[in-house]
């Protein structure tokens, strides 16, 4: 069954916090599932013609750009040990750098060469920017770049780090900033006050490395944060961290889950769907499909389908009510970033070699309709706002839009 666009729009609107529709305020968009409604005029062609602007970046980073109003914000880290943490704000319209702030890391900056210290995607509540780095430095700025608060989470919790690097992105849920600082040693998740940065809650988490990002779904009439880890998925109240429900059959620690309405699709023994109710306790899956096995890229949800990319670069579409695979096509991999899509019926993904690919989703099966070689390594995920697509490498931030 296909959900009519107005229905999807209504569901997404219900889930959306205070940010405007045009914004892309966090990792994998306003719904944390890679898709955004509207943006029908986003070009299906990625080419030199559709590069609206590009801007140089001063340091390494793989966190996605976020779009807040007329601003594009990215993080970076520079210096021989990536000890200088940076937040950069660009004008959405012309790519002009509006401001740049730099901070000295207070936590450890060691990480695997493939990732980097600016791995987490920042987030915003529309008034403030919240940026987290692998060093566990967590910083809040206003939209003009004024510091509101700063936390050094490794100063507070000295064994909270991962020598391979941390990458989970924080999210805003209501008036709480939620972050998973999960690792082999001092592993925790916490909710922070948006205004002061103080802990609202902090809970112990499984002592295993985990790079997944929390997602939000409606469960029993309220918004619940789903914290994924190797042990499974824990649903907690965003304001208190109190457990609401649990799924304890294990889950992936690299690709994150994706939400559509009250249903969570997450990498666990392939792909698993579940719809936690209000009763709490252990949650049972709606379905599990072992053949749908996400690798590094997180699932994408648009309309009635869920899309995953496996370890060999094969993109699969599945019916999200049943998990049944509908089609699959091979893309040019390998992929570290995740696919994104708008209401224009196309999927966008960049591989590690910097090749952007556009897949038309409107037919019986997906078809690659456009490619561009950006010539730089790309490990991150694109963002969509205002009929434009944004992608960054270590060195460059690009905007793709309609030709001028």
């Amino acid at each position: 069954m296909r959900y009519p666009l107005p229905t999807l729009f209504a569901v997404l609107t219900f889930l959306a916090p205070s940010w405007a529709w045009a914004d892309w305020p966090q990792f994998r968009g306003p719904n944390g599932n890679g898709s955004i409604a509207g943006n029908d005029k986003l070009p299906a062609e990625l080419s030199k013609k559709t590069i609206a602007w590009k801007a140089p970046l001063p340091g390494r980073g793989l966190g996605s750009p976020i779009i807040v109003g007329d601003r594009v914000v990215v993080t970076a880290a520079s210096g021989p040990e990536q000890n200088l943490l940076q937040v950069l704000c660009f004008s959405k319209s012309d790519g002009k750098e509006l401001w740049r702030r730099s901070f000295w890391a207070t936590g450890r900056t060691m990480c695997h060469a493939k990732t980097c210290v600016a791995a987490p995607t920042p987030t915003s509540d529309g008034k403030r920017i919240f940026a987290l780095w692998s060093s566990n430095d967590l910083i809040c700025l206003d939209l003009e770049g004024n510091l509101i608060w700063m936390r050094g989470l490794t100063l507070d919790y000295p064994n909270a780090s991962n020598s391979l690097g941390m990458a989970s992105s924080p999210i805003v849920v209501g008036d709480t900033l939620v972050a998973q600082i999960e690792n082999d040693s001092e592993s925790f998740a916490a909710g922070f006050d948006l205004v002061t940065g103080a802990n609202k809650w902090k809970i112990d988490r499984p002592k295993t490395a985990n790079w997944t990002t929390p997602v939000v779904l409606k469960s029993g009439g309220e918004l619940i944060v789903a914290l994924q880890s190797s042990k499974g998925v824990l649903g907690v109240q965003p304001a208190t961290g109190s457990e609401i429900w649990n799924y304890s059959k294990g889950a992936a620690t690299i690709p994150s889950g994706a939400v559509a309405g009250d249903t969570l699709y997450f990498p666990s023994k392939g792909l698993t769907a579940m719809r936690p109710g209000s009763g709490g306790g252990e949650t049972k899956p709606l379905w599990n499909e072992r053949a749908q096995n996400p690798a590094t890229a997180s699932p994408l949800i648009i309309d009635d389908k869920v899309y995953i990319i496996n370890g060999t670069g094969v993109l699969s579409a599945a019916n999200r009510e049943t998990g049944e695979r509908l089609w699959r096509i091979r893309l040019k991999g390998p992929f570290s970033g995740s696919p994104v899509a708008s209401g224009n019926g196309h999927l966008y993904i960049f591989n590690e070699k910097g090749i952007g690919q556009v897949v038309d989703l409107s037919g019986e099966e997906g078809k690659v309709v456009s490619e561009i070689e950006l010539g730089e390594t790309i490990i991150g995920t694109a963002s969509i706002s205002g009929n434009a697509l944004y992608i960054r490498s270590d060195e460059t931030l690009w905007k793709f839009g309609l030709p001028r």
Partner: protein
Amino acid sequence: MHARILSSCLSALVLAGILGFDSAIAKLPAELKQQIAAIQAVGPEGAGNPAAAIAFKELSASRTDAILPLLRAIESSGPLARNWLRSAVEVIVERELRSQKTLPVDGLRVFLLDTRQAPEARRLAYDLLAKIDPASAKKLIPGFLNDPSTELRRDAVAQLVTKGKSLTEDDKAAAIATYRKALDAARDVDQVKVIATELSETLGQEVDLPRHFGFLVHWQVIGPFDNSGRDGFAAVFPPEKKVDLDAAHAGKGEEQVKWQPLVSTNEYGKIDLNKPLGKLKEVTGYAYSEFVAEQAGPAELRLGCKNAWKIWLNGELMFGRDEYHRGQRIDQYKMSVHLKEGKNVILVKLCQNEMKEKWTVEWEFQLRVCDATGTAILSTGRPATPKAEAATK
């Protein structure tokens, strides 16, 4: 000659700066002092953030005359407050430069050359100067070769590396001298590796890297003790209660284990417990070394390790970490310590887990003693470095 004149001028500037700053501090408006104090009061778990945010807003609205007091305040600030102060400076600079205003160039130069100030703040001052007058800033770089700021020092070392490369073909002796000078000054591991490679492989020179870094390479080790289920990390085995190098203890499986010497010949000071004890799994080992400090004072123990570990200095636990096989590098963990004059004893606990993958074989660590800049502090009577084997990392 030119360098000497430059040096004299810089010294004069520093002296003037010190005097100038003293009077400047005295004249600081009470309001500015209060704002800086509010920022310096930020503490653990978000304490003080609301008051700091108010102070920040006021400070960042200041004119350029607040820049130098803010930079000076960084030296006496904690790691979070330093960032608040830096950010206030950045906001002021951004606004003033956008308004075509000038920065206090002379004051920044004096601050930069005042080595009593916080190294990272001095680097920020350098970056601001370079933004205004890149050519003049670049001329200062050679003077940073032995600077307490490793970031400033890095630029000077890089210039020497470039010079060394240009000399290698035509004047080997000059190239060696240049690289030796660069090595003496280098503190960043990546630069040291580049210089050492040029000296040893291109120019045929011997390089004593363990001594350069201050790695401890002479140890006594004992094991294996148990680490089944990773419980060994928390367990207290006999060496943690008392180090008696003549004692034998019940090890894993009731096997009697004794202390034995282990001397590393690795260029980067790796102490590999697999060599004396075998490639074991789910085991715990200990390593003991003595360090004779010429004088009491602050130092850093810097450890690289991919196994779970704990470290004690003179019987006091410094830190411990139960992470396995996520990566290892030199200076991965930095622990500020206080050395006592004379003999200091160091005990390292090293746990190996159950993983079987080929990248989980390592059961090793590398430990050095240095100051806050990474300059080696050598034990009095340090033995000659054993002949090095090829570097593995």
